[in-house]
Structure formats: structure tokens, C-alpha cells
């Protein structure tokens, strides 16, 4: 089918007003985009694809398409952005089931009206959907306190490549009925199904917030202070060590912690942390939230013009990994755009724009080799396709790849979901 006939077939299902065009990646050609308004339309679109051997990339608002590699072939994109609204919201039970296309910003508003807070707390919430966040397995800056997003997905409705509408899990905070297929779908980047509805666990909205900032003498001091916080009786939402270069050059390291919860608890935690982080500056409530959001957005390095590396290892290896990666940055003479979550052993590295693809590829390879040596991983995000030539953005080796291929072929035997984008060419 050529593009014109694909567009016509899509329009028959969702209406011409809801067919447009979008890039399947920031540097890929445009493909037809269909925006269904119901799970039934999602199913019809996928049945069409299965019947006519079309290849589909499911998307939300498309903010994380650069996290994946290039698809072998894309005939159309299927966006869930018109699937919005709550299916059920039980504030007294602390649970919510929502359609997958709701933006994270809208969702945050919705749950806050019920006295709750949503995790994950992701950057630029208006530009991504809950479906996209779950499909990408995107955890938030609040991961230290709440854990990864996969822990909070209670169940899903998902449409398979042949249009079959299925469910996994439920809407309860505890449930072991059936296989946890929602765990399989979370982080599968739209290679197994289209998520159309997601049930989530909610958390109580904080009574009080605090944002604590300190300028450590150097990186080692910053890490030492973060480690000291680990031993304190507190449950920080995030602890971030950042150095964000300006046009004038590299910036010094700054250390930030976010606390929130019940009033008395936050006050006690704040006192304990300030006693350890002498000279720290404290912001509270509205100001605290604004500062936290600003750092979250600045350190996500998620603009599509900027490639980034998400590195992780076990906590005991962090110092060594960080030191090796910074040495690589120094060798490359690239400015330092680094955010470290020391207690989770995560490092996000913003790479400079307009770098030759070969240099970017070489840097990513060397950084991954270092991460692997320290038992960790390195995910290359938003690098141009030229830079990914021969480089899997997710990992060089995947334990269980053969089984993953088998899972994929069981769930999508006709290969409706475009191949080659995810780890291991999945």
C-alpha cells in the first residue's frame, strides 16, 4: 500500500480529521499518523495492519521516540493521544484507571484533586502521556522514594497486533491473579501491544515539602554527603548531584534533596539533613516544588536535539563509574552536563548537540564499555540514527534475547509492530 491508500484506509476508521503525519523518530521520514478515539478503533487499526501487512509504531505524544533505534519499516503511527479520561478513580482506595493517552500533566491535576500524588514524576509532563511513560518504562526523579514505574502499574488493557483486546492485572493494590503481563508490556516500547488503559496506585499528597541545596567542595564531597544522607532517618524523594555547564564553561557541583510527606515527619527529616549538610539552603512548599521541577526538567536532557546517556550500576560501583565517565568527557573536551542520583546509582549525561555522529558513537561505545566493566548499563537516547549505525541504543548483550524474540513472536506473530526499534533488534 502506498501512503495515499494507507491514509485513506486509516481515515475510514478514525475519520480524516484524525489522520495526519509525524516522524517515527526526530530524524526519520514522516509517516501517516492515526489518532483513534476508542479502544475499538485501536483494534480496527491493528486488524487493518495485520490484514494488509502494515508495520505500526504505537506512540503517545512522541516525546520518547528517540529513545529507540530505527524501525526496519513504518507504514503508520498509532497515537493514543485521543484516549483520555479516567475509567475509574477511587480516591478513598488510592487507585486510578485512566485511558492511556492522558498527558502526565492532566493526570497530575486529576489525582491532586483527589488528594493524591502520582509517581513517576517525569520531566515536561505536558509533553508525554501515561501510556508513553509506561510503554517506555520511564521512571521519575522521585524514584528514590517510590521506586520504578513498573512497581505501580496495577493492570492494563492492551491491544495486540491482531487487534485482540486483552487485560492483565486489575485495579487493586495487591493482586496475583494470572500472569503479570503488564510487567512484560511495561518498558516494551510498543513492540508487543498498544496500551489503551492503565491502572495505577496513587500516593497521598504531601502536607509539606522542602528543597535543600548545598554546594559541596567537589564531587567527592558531594558523594560523601549523599552517602551520609542514606544513613539518616529520612525517606528523601530525590537526592541529586548536578553539574550543568553554561556558555561560560563547566559549573561547580551542586547537591539537592527533596523531602515531602506529613508535616511533622518532614520537619524532623529536614532537621536531620540540615545537621548533616551544614550550610544548606532550604526552600519550602511552593518554592520547593518549583525548584524541584526546574532541576528535574534541566537534568532530563530529553530535548530531541540533545543526545544523552542514561548510565546505571550498583551503588558500590558508582564512584568508579562516575570517575571513568567524567574522564571520558574530559578527553572529549565536552562540557559537563551531568546529573547523578547517587543513592540509586544513576548517571544522566547530556551530550553536546551538533557533534559529528562518529564521535558520538565512539563516546557512547566507550561509556558503555566502562559501565559494563562496573556491572552496569548505558542507554543512548536521542542520538541521531547516523550515530547509532552499528550501535544498539539499549545494550550490546541481552540475557534472554532468544526468549524475548519468542515472546514477541507469540504475541505478535504477524509482525505488526515495527521491528528493529527496541533492544536486540526487537
Amino acid at each position: 500500500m502506498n501512503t495515499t491508500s494507507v491514509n485513506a484506509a486509516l481515515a475510514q476508521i478514525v475519520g480524516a480529521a484524525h489522520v495526519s503525519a509525524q516522524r517515527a523518530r526526530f530524524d526519520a521520514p514522516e509517516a501517516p499518523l492515526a489518532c483513534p478515539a476508542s479502544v475499538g478503533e485501536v483494534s480496527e487499526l491493528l486488524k487493518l495492519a495485520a490484514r494488509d501487512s502494515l508495520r505500526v509504531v504505537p506512540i503517545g505524544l512522541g516525546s520518547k521516540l528517540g529513545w529507540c533505534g530505527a524501525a526496519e519499516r513504518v507504514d503508520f503511527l498509532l497515537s493514543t493521544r485521543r484516549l483520555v479520561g479516567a475509567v475509574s478513580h477511587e480516591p478513598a482506595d488510592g487507585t486510578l484507571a485512566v485511558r492511556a493517552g492522558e498527558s502526565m500533566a492532566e493526570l497530575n491535576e486529576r489525582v491532586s484533586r483527589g488528594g493524591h500524588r502520582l509517581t513517576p514524576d517525569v520531566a515536561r509532563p505536558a509533553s508525554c502521556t501515561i501510556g508513553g511513560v509506561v510503554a517506555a518504562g520511564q521512571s521519575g526523579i522521585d524514584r528514590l522514594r517510590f521506586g520504578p514505574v513498573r512497581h505501580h502499574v496495577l493492570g492494563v488493557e492492551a491491544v495486540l497486533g491482531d487487534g485482540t483486546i486483552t487485560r492483565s492485572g486489575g485495579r487493586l493494590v495487591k493482586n496475583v491473579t494470572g500472569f503479570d503481563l503488564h510487567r512484560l508490556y511495561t518498558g516494551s516500547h510498543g513492540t508487543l501491544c498498544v496500551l489503551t488503559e492503565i491502572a495505577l496506585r496513587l500516593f497521598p499528597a504531601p502536607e509539606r515539602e522542602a528543597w535543600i541545596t548545598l554546594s559541596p567542595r567537589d564531587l567527592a564531597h558531594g558523594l560523601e554527603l549523599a552517602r551520609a544522607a542514606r544513613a539518616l532517618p529520612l525517606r528523601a524523594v530525590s537526592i541529586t548531584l548536578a553539574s550543568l555547564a553554561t556558555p561560560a564553561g563547566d559549573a561547580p557541583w551542586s547537591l539537592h534533596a527533596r523531602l515531602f510527606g506529613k508535616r511533622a515527619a518532614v520537619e524532623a527529616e529536614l532537621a536531620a539533613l540540615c545537621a548533616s549538610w551544614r550550610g544548606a539552603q532550604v526552600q519550602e512548599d511552593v518554592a520547593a516544588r518549583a525548584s524541584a521541577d526546574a532541576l528535574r526538567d534541566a537534568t532530563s536532557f530529553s530535548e530531541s536535539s540533545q543526545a544523552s546517556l542514561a548510565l546505571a550500576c550498583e551503588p558500590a560501583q558508582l564512584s568508579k563509574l562516575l570517575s571513568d565517565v567524567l574522564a571520558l568527557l574530559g578527553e572529549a573536551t565536552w562540557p559537563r552536563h551531568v546529573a547523578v542520583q547517587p543513592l540509586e546509582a544513576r548517571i544522566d549525561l547530556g551530550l553536546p548537540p551538533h557533534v559529528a555522529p562518529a564521535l558520538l558513537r565512539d563516546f557512547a561505545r566507550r561509556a558503555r564499555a566502562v559501565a559494563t566493566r562496573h556491572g552496569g548499563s548505558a542507554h543512548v537516547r536521542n542520538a541521531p540514527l547516523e550515530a547509532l549505525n552499528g550501535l544498539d541504543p539499549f545494550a550490546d548483550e541481552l540475557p534472554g534475547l532468544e526468549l524475548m524474540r519468542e515472546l514477541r513472536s507469540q504475541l505478535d506473530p504477524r509482525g505488526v509492530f515495527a521491528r528493529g526499534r527496541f533492544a536486540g533488534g526487537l
Partner: protein
Amino acid sequence: MTPGVDAALLAQLRAVTGEAGLISDPTRLLSYECDGLALLQQRPACVVLPRTTDECARAVALLHRAGVPIVGRGAGTGLSGGATPVEGGAIVGLARMREILALDVENRTARVQAGLVNVDLSFAAEQHGLFYAPDPSSQHACTIGGNIGENSGGPHCFKYGSTNRHVLGLTIVRHDGSVLDLSRVQLDPLGYDLLGLFVGSEGMFGIATEIVVQLMPIQPVVETVLAIFKDLDGACDSVSDVIAAGHEPVALEILDRLTIEAVEASIFAAGYPKDAEAVLLIECEGSEAEVASSLDEILAVVRRRGAIDVRRARNAHERKKLWAGRKGAFGAMGRIAPDLYVADVVVPRTKLRELVLGTTRIAHERGLKLSNVFHAGDGNLHPNISYDRRNPDEVRRVLEAGDEIMELVVKAGGSLTGEHGVGLEKQAAMTQVFDEPSLRTMCAVRDAWDPQRRMNPGKLIPVHACREMRGALRPKA
């Protein structure tokens, strides 16, 4: 002896595991005829007890080549028939794989063999200020491997989450004896989340032999309180209110009068007041300020809901005693009747009172004795029916009540199981929760792991006609 398991195969298995690692003597096999769901019994053809991943892999490969179905088994404490043997099949048991292979204090992880008894891990971690959070009531007997199979919970999972939140790595022996090494700890899955998918797969995807788990720091302050009620409704409503108000205690557990009586008459006697209709066990932990403020607010709620007394554990000994009563409750039920049917359903936490009443009504209408001890904070009910399995009519009524309880709960937006798994017990009821396409999808995923469907066959998914499956739950004449 069935055709699959013959003398030659037994000799080959013996060569792998040694004499002590193979059981084929019919008398000794009696101990493996059932798990905690004693209603269902089937003698296995043999029991293999490997000591290492390598032994397990070699044994499974032999069984695979001979076409013998395999049922994995931890300690056999499961309550849904997940480890019930299949006819002509082998049990691969973890009883000789009990080592803690590494305890990494800095990274707060432990690598253990799958047969390690749950509580032994917390005992070992305690000296480093750490503990393993999932704590099923059977934790003094059940294994970490069994917990992986069922995605087990426990009272403290209200705050810390069930087993799947705590598993960081696995070594899995697959259906054909190949070893899938997912033991390297990663912050996020590389590729699909095979770990998350495996945990709770009830032994149908393979056998976990080595497990890396996350350990949690022991909190500086722990407060355990017993709130005493003149009626069960007040205890249930307290929990609904505590959840709705956004409090985050570590555990919220309810025991009703019949349970209290059984516990107090047993070796687990905890000092629960015998004249109470219900007690609510509340635990908070964290910093001193956090615990103090949380507990004050929670106690205000329970008093508003009619608690007539509140007793605070004054020291670790008293706390331990209060918990021993709760965790020993199932054992104590032996004082009421020789057998216990432990149901395990989950309800929305806004409907606790209504559904506890409903389950009680269902049992009483059939002249059955029902007691309640449950993880109220998670909405995870355990309506327990005491019965005598030698009385066929009583068994029939118990099964009927179990079915109706599940139906009631599902209709109210609840679920079939919160921590015990589906196994054989709830297999037929799966169609109440999942439609045919969803069940077919589960089958497809299972086929990716085990194309011949020989790992724990006939469990969880109602592949055959539901009528046939109900037949499986009838006790043998």
C-alpha cells in the same frame, strides 16, 4: 511406576543428585502428595532434590527428554494447590538448596539459593541492620523460591510491596534444562522485563534456583499497637478511613473473635482480649517524629470508629508476641477443626466491611464456621473455613462457599487472589476475571517459555472445560 519415569530414568537422576536427592519409594512419596491445599492429593512418580543449579538443570533435562511433567516445590506451604503433583510427574524440590551465597551490605542485596527459608534471610541480614521485607505468615517454613513462584505477600507488604518488588535477579532452569541467567542486577530491565514476568508465574515458566533480592534497612523506630473493638465493622471501617486519609503505616491486620479465641488457646497466645469482637494490629515505622505523628493520627481514627482500648507494645518482646499471634493464627485454627480452607481474595479497601459481612453470610448459610484474619491495609481478605475433610458433605459445602466468596468479591470489583496464587484452587474461577482473549494471551506467553507445557501443567489457566477443572477440586473418595 508410570511409563515416563522408569528404572533407567531413576538411575540417571540418581547419578545427578546422589542417593539422598532422589525419592521414589511410595511411602516416602506420601509426604509430597499435596501442598497446603490438602483437599487435592496426587502421588508424584518421583521427587528430585538437587543441591545446585547445575544439578537441577541436568535433572530437568533428563525429565524433559523423557517427557515427564515437572512440578517445582519449595516447602509445600502454598495454599492454592500450586505444588500439587501431576499424575506420572516429578516433583523438583528445593529443600537441599538453602545457602545464602552472598550478602552484600553496601549494595543491600543478597544472593540466595531458592530453597532458603524466608525468615532465615532476615535473621542473617539483621546483624547488618537490614531485613527482607516479604514476610508471609508461613515465613518460618516457606522458601524464597516458593515466594517467587507465588509472588507472595505478608503483613509488611502493605508498605513494602509483594515479592516482585524485591527481586533483582534470577537464575532460572527452563523446561528443557537450559539455564537462563538473569542474575546480573540492573536498575531497569535490559529488553523485556523477564524478571517481572517470571515472579508469580506459579512454576509454569521454569524453576528459579538462585535469587538476588533487595534488602531494606531496619527503621530506627517501630511502634506496634493493638486496637480492640466490640464489633468487626468498626475495625474494617477504621482501615478504610486510615487509607482514605492517606496514612502509610507498615501493616494493618485484622483478626476476628473466632481467630482470637483460637490464638489465645494455642501456643501462639499473644494476650489478645478474648471478649473482643475484633482486633486491629497496627505497625508504624520510620523516624521518631514520623512514627509519633502517624500513630497519633491513626489512633484518633480508630477511636472515632469505636476502638474501646488501644494497647501499645512496650518493647521488642511484646511486639514479637503480638506478631506471633497474628502469624500463628492459621496454625491455631487447628483447635477449631482438623482442616482449614484458607480463602485469599482482594477487595477494594472502600468495601472492607461490606465484603467481610458478605463472606461471613455465605459460610453461615451453609452451616460452616468462618473466621477472619487478614491483611486489611491491602484489602486482602482471608476468610478461613474450618472443616473436617472426612465429612464429604462438609467438604462440598466448603467448596461451594469458596466459589461463592470468589464470585461475590469479583462482582464487587475485587480479585481472586492477593498472595496465594491461582493454582488449582481458583483455576476455574479465572474466567470470572479474565475473558477468553486475555486467557489465550497468557497461554501464548506460557508457550514462549515452555512450548510443551510440561512445567506445572494443568494449573492457573483453565485451558480445558471449566467443568473438568471443577472435577479436580473434588476430594478422592
